[in-house]
């Protein structure tokens, strides 16, 4: 399913054109899926723009304690309550590397098909900022823990967003580093408050090559990364809690020309904003260049209220970080089964092979399995994985019913998920669980109720009154009429009341039969099995 990387540009290239007013109306990508050669021949005859987007994603490592100190990691703790002497950079304190953070990075690297460096190094990156107590951040600039990986992701294209395309982005590297603290500015009192709870929390910086070309692609890639991290448990990757933060490097150029000057949009903390920020920035650069301006190599922030990017004040401007090796941490050495020294304490080493063997199924593998095992459509497998807990619910329902999974998926996605989306609920919050849905589908499957009755039952179940589907069926008298003679009589009565239609059918207009079926349904308050009704009517009509 994966589209080839190089030369496979047929579907994965976007052509951008300047559009009047785009900056203010919210930029949208231009039409997708054109041949690059054809794009050049536009109405105005001007060469089109191509956007180049690369990402740096900071994922907070899901660990109990910080990367270089024993302080706990917790999002909701009171300010400055999780600060060790090291985190506050008291003089004389030294970093001690947290093994769990190393394992998380190795796991993530393996999941992204990276090669894991058996030896990696730590560096100091210097800049003065109030929430960086040591005046430098410990990171891996020279030799990171993982390099040369790949991430494939899928997005919907086409006029109706109906076509699924799989794309690849190369992973340049994954580096371990410390998070900074938080600054809270009070402009009224012109004061800055510092919270060091986050200072020293372990981060994995995943650097993606500039293989993307629009906001939607960037968002889809990050979404896939997020799912992978959550599957691995290496990061909770909750963007709203700042556990996944994205910096986007954006530039534009004409095809065949070298890369343009890039800007960096920093600290984007939602997928929606990421797509909007990237697309805005692309349009802004195109407009700037077409107006004869130049692009500055600068850092910008996305203002989600205004929907635009704005230059950031100095913090990350043109700075010389004066990188230097971190002298207090020896090189990080990882082992594999082959290189593992004998008689070594397991707690003292990280074994790459051991981690590889225990890697859980990745989202792509899960999707393939779902498609194969249940015969569902690939896009349904994406939906199942995109919603936390939906895959588990689906599989649970399949296990509990005799219904064909291909039919179950319809109920799960159109009915259940549709409803949840409408009311902005998560799967966990759903009033209908797998047990009641399975009960309901079993009633349908056994012919106790019709599918329209099943929908009625579902409506009742959403109320969350704790009734079982069977109770609802009984109360509302929704069972199909099983008594053949009773149905026979109803059909007879309908035929007698509609002689004109009967004549028409007998004259050869079979379509009118459906009208009679509908009338029987109405007479039974839709409690009749339409197939059975059809059989009875046909039999009677042929007599």
């Amino acid at each position, binding site marked *: 399913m994966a589209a080839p990387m190089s030369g496979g540009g047929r579907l994965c290239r976007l052509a951008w054109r300047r559009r009047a007013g785009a900056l203010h109306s919210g930029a949208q990508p231009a039409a997708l899926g054109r041949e690059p050669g054809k794009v050049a021949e536009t109405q105005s005859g001007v060469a089109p723009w191509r956007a180049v987007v690369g990402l740096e994603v900071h994922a907070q490592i899901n660990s109990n304690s910080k990367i270089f100190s024993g302080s706990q990691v917790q999002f909701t703790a009171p300010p400055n309550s999780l600060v060790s002497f090291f985190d*506050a950079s*008291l*003089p004389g304190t*030294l970093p001690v590397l947290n093994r769990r953070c190393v394992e998380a990075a190795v796991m993530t690297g393996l999941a992204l098909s990276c090669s894991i460096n058996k030896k990696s190094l730590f560096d100091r990156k210097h800049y*003065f900022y109030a929430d960086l*107590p040591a005046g430098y951040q410990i990171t891996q600039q020279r030799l990171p823990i993982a390099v040369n990986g790949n991430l494939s992701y899928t997005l919907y294209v086409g006029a109706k967003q109906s076509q699924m395309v799989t794309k690849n982005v190369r992973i340049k590297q994954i580096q371990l580093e410390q998070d900074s603290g938080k600054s809270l500015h009070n402009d009224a009192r012109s004061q800055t408050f510092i919270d060091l709870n986050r200072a020293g929390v372990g981060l994995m910086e995943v650097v993606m090559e500039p293989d993307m070309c629009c906001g939607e692609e960037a968002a889809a890639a990050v979404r896939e990364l997020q799912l992978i991290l959550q599957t691995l448990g290496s990061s909770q990757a909750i963007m709203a809690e700042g556990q996944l933060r994205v910096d986007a490097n954006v530039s534009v150029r004409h095809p065949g020309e070298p890369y343009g000057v890039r800007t960096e949009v920093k600290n984007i903390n939602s997928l929606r904003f990421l797509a909007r920020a990237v697309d805005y920035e692309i349009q802004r650069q195109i407009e700037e260049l077409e107006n004869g301006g130049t692009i500055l190599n600068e850092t910008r922030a996305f203002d989600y209220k205004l929907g635009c990017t704005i230059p950031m004040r100095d913090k990350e401007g043109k700075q*010389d970080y004066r990188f230097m090796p971190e002298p207090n941490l020896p090189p990080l050495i990882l082992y594999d089964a082959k290189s593992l020294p004998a008689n070594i304490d397991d707690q003292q080493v990280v074994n790459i092979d051991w981690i590889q063997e225990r890697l859980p199924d990745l989202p792509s593998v899960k999707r393939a399995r779902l498609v194969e095992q249940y015969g569902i459509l690939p896009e349904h497998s994406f939906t199942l994985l995109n919603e936390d807990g939906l895959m588990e619910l689906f599989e649970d329902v399949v296990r509990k019913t005799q219904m064909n999974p291909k039919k179950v998926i319809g109920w799960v996605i159109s009915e259940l998920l549709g409803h949840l989306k409408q009311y902005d609920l998560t799967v966990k919050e759903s009033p209908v669980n797998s047990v009641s849905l399975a009960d309901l589908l079993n009633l349908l499957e056994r012919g106790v109720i019709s599918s329209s009755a099943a929908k009625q039952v579902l409506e009742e179940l959403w109320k969350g009154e704790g009734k079982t589907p069977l109770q609802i069926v009984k109360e509302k008298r929704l069972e199909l009429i099983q008594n053949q003679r009773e149905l026979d009589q109803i059909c007879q009565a309908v035929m007698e009341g509609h002689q004109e239609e009967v004549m028409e059918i007998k004259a050869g207009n079979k379509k009118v039969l459906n009208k009679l079926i509908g009338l029987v349904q109405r007479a039974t308050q839709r409690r009749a099995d339409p197939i059975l009704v059809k059989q009875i009517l046909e039999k009677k009509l042929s007599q």
Partner: protein
Amino acid sequence: MLRTALREVSTALKEGQVSPTELCQRCLSLIKATKFLNAYITVTEDTALRQAEESEKRYRRGQSLGDLDGIPVAVKDNFSTTGIETTCASNMLKGYIPPYSATVVQKLLDQGAVLIGKTNLDEFAMGSGSTDGIFGPVRNPWSYSKQYREKCGQNSHLENEDSSWLITGGSSGGSAAAVSSFTCFAALGSDTGGSTRNPAAHCGVVGLKPTYGLVSRHGLIPLVNSMDVPGILTRCVDDAATVLGVLAGHDPKDSTTVQDPFNPFKLPSVIDVSKLCIGIPKEYHIPGLSSETLAVWSKAADLFENAGARVIEVSLPHTCYSIVCYHVLCTAEVASNMARFDGLEYGHRSNMDKSTESMYAATRREGFNDVVRGRILSGNYFLLKQNYEKYFIKAQKVRRLIANDFVNVFSSGVDVLLTPTTLRDAVPYVEFIKEDNRTRSAQDDIFTQAANMSGLPAVSIPTALSEKGLPIGLQFVGRAFQELQLLTVAKWFEKQAKFPILQLQEMLDHADALSHQKISLSS
């Protein structure tokens, strides 16, 4: 009693000849009497007496913690001490009271040692004279010795303002002076380019710089992380081995300490050096070396030769690049390490409140002296992107070459190197300050620095008195983690050298008088 070695006073404590409290009080009196030496920044009288009392209880119960129980020790004021001000002799940390103790300090306390005070140094240990701290210079106790006074013909009263008093060397001058003037039995220094061995040589005491990675740096406020090592200052080699036995070993809080277990050792009493090979590095024979020191060095080589050892000339060809290489690496790490002193979390904070940036600038201008600021400036220059390859990377390569020089020499069969520790004996303060800190540091570290570059253990042994009656020390450099061999050789040599004891009778009498006076006043 105060003039004995640690091991002897330890025996005296065990035998009940003296009590820990009594010993502590005597040291405290002597500290007061020798206050003009300026060896201490903080004298921790109250806590010391409390610790001595605890120790006394243990002795009474027969539950002594070992050789260090009840022994007064001093710690250089760049080691963090819980609840005790730790200043690095800088305005930046004036009033800073750490909430934790350095591992080495904790290890001393856990063995029952009595922490008597925090000793003076150059600001942030940047210097080779112990003259550049905010609390003023440390005076070398030998300035007031009978030996020196007789030689330079000055018999004036010791407290008279005179211009002849000598520097201690540095930057651990306070610790060296404290051990040398008998106010404690052992002291911690730190050694980045020679800061323990240099003042040890000038003050006539033993100064040991252990192998990098053998002793924890956790809690030592860093100068150059990749070279810093806690140093040990004692009156004899056996004492240094005893203290090393307590301090050495892996520390989970310092990832650069080695994992291998360390077995404390006692040095043999009968030593045979006849099977040893002593290397004499020819590059250490340099123009600035005083003829006296050169003579002492040759005599020492002869001693070994006469005892049957093989003494050979060896070459450490990259020695001459050491100073400039050290300058680049040291300043780069200093620039980085000093970045944390921004006035936000601890230490000095300027009143400037226009902006965070202006507060940083004012805080750092007010907090650091010119030496520190100069090193920060040059270090940042070397780390700039356009200079990094040219200076920092090159210096690292040169460092590797210097380290390899030692590897080559040791793998050729040499067991221990014998070198001078300093170019000459201690100079008077007025002489010393004629040159700036940078020039002085460059000159004075010349024999000691390479051991820090290569991480090797080295020890300075007081060897002889100069014509002026001042100590001259020689240095032994050993193989990595071969402290037992290094100190064994050093102990043999110490025995042959018969270095005279510092004669401070005049000063001690004065101290006694003071303490009696105090007793009579209080009774």
